[in-house]
């Protein structure tokens, strides 16, 4: 195959690069979309919730880190650190909702949005104060030297990102489609007062939504940290990009967020390769896509237009 004059081995390489980047965006985008689905509100502190969880995972990892104990031990504490990061972000997400958003549920739309921006600035500044502004290196828990697969070089970390992303997203999809609480979550996003009429504790579902969305972001945070280090504003750009991914897929739509993330990751990667966009301008791709989507299909690519019949 010879698409745009790219040799097939390079094509595979870019594809893997795009998919890994996309999987990260998808994991973060899910939090935006799930919260939007239920509260019709963009949680602009989502990127900072990701950052805080990543710090928790980072400190836990280095508290137990001891290379002399062997490879299995290192992978073990890494998995534990991932879980700690998820728990920390989940708790933070739930607390932020209770403290900063819930009291504003009946206020004008702009109020919780401003509150979210306030929370995000506070969190980033607190992180700078307590953890310092200097980036911290999060060592790979395994040897990350790249492998040759079909003539392209792929790192174990990329494979891990793809595997973890796939597992998390498949798990979430199963949860939302099949379980009692997952169905309650969908019901709440479709009609909140009527969901309450089914006996659903809507506040509990809202907390659960924040917990799951935040935990998924923490997973993405740790995976990003392995490649790009941990620092107080690490969630800002990733959060913005993932927000765009959520809009591209149709905000409020879970499958849309997954698809939107993957599409954005591929577009960014192939945009650089095919259109020859300089690396330094890579971020402009995402924002151009946002503008295009808003102009052409503001409800996103996957948004169905089912209306309630009257």
């Amino acid at each position: 195959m010879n698409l745009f004059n790219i040799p097939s081995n390079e094509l595979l390489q870019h594809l893997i690069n795009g998919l890994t980047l996309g999987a990260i965006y998808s994991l973060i985008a899910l939090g935006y979309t799930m919260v939007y689905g239920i509260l019709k509100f963009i949680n602009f502190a989502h990127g900072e919730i990701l950052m805080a969880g990543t710090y928790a995972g980072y400190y836990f990892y280095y508290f137990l880190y001891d290379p002399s104990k062997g490879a299995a031990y290192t992978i073990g504490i890494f998995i534990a650190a991932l879980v700690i990061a998820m728990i920390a972000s989940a708790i933070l997400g739930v607390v932020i909702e209770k403290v900063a958003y819930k009291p504003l549920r009946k206020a004008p739309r702009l109020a919780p949005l401003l509150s979210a921006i306030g929370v995000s600035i506070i969190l980033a500044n607190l992180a700078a104060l307590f953890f310092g502004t200097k980036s911290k290196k999060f060592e790979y828990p395994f040897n990350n030297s790249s492998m040759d697969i079909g003539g392209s070089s792929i790192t174990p970390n990329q494979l891990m990102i793809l595997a973890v992303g796939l597992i998390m997203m498949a798990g979430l999809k199963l949860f939302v489609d099949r379980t009692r609480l997952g169905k309650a979550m969908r019901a709440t996003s479709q009609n909140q007062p009527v969901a309450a009429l089914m006996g659903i504790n809507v506040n509990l579902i809202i907390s659960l939504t924040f917990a799951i969305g935040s935990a998924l972001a923490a997973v993405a945070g740790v995976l990003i940290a392995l490649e790009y280090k941990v620092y107080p504003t690490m969630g800002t750009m990733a959060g913005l990009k993932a927000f765009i991914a959520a809009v591209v897929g149709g905000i409020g739509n879970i499958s849309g967020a997954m698809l939107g993330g993957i599409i954005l990751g591929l577009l960014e990667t192939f945009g650089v390769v095919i259109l020859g966009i300089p690396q330094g301008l890579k971020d402009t791709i995402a924002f151009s896509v946002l503008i295009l989507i808003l102009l052409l299909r503001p409800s996103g690519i996957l948004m169905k237009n089912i209306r309630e019949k009257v």
Partner: protein
Amino acid sequence: MTNKILELKDVRVNYGNIQALKGVNLNVAEGEIVSLIGANGAGKSTLLKSIVGLESLTNGNITFNGSSIRDAGKNRKLNLPTDKIIASGISLVPEGRGVFPEMTVLENLEMGAYLLRDKAEKKRRIEEKYEMFGILRDRRKQLAGSLSGGEQQMLAIARALMSSPKLLLLDEPALGLAPLIIQNIFATISKISREEKVTIFLVEQNAKMALSISDKGYVMETGNIILEDLSSNLLENPKVKAAYLGE
């Protein structure tokens, strides 16, 4: 004396400066069908929402089976949240049906029995609803949003019955439906009352239909109950005839 299953005492509800309910006293006896009729904006939906805790009282109290479920005071024990009120045995079919449009008919029915953990019993109740409304069985895999208005109303009623409530509240089940379907819906409501031992409190603008199937009726005007009588008497009441029956 019959047992009052639902009792409202001097219930007031405000939306900002608007007084939607201005001191409503009302009671429903166990096993009865009671209807509440009134024009647009009279406060009928507000009344139902305040019973299930979707609106807060600024004054008064609501009891269900003798215990307080909503109260204007600060005491939390007298003021249950919506999910607890549903759990205690009340169901509401909301105005405009409120089916979950992007869920299938079957999923909608399952949501109606959300609080029921017994899977076999849930299945039995779903089967029972399919028996009652054959159309729902045929459409069980279809998204509820794609049903016709009449089918959605059937689904909303079936869903409300999934929790096996003691008291069923209905908010304008005839709204926007063709006359033949309206007859069908009201026949179903009578049947539910007879066969399921469910007490029914029915809010309607279609006064003739509502009064013809109910035991007792209330007439509401701009937040106040202005008449209360046996439905058969209300059907003969000149004032009701002039204002609500178009005679």
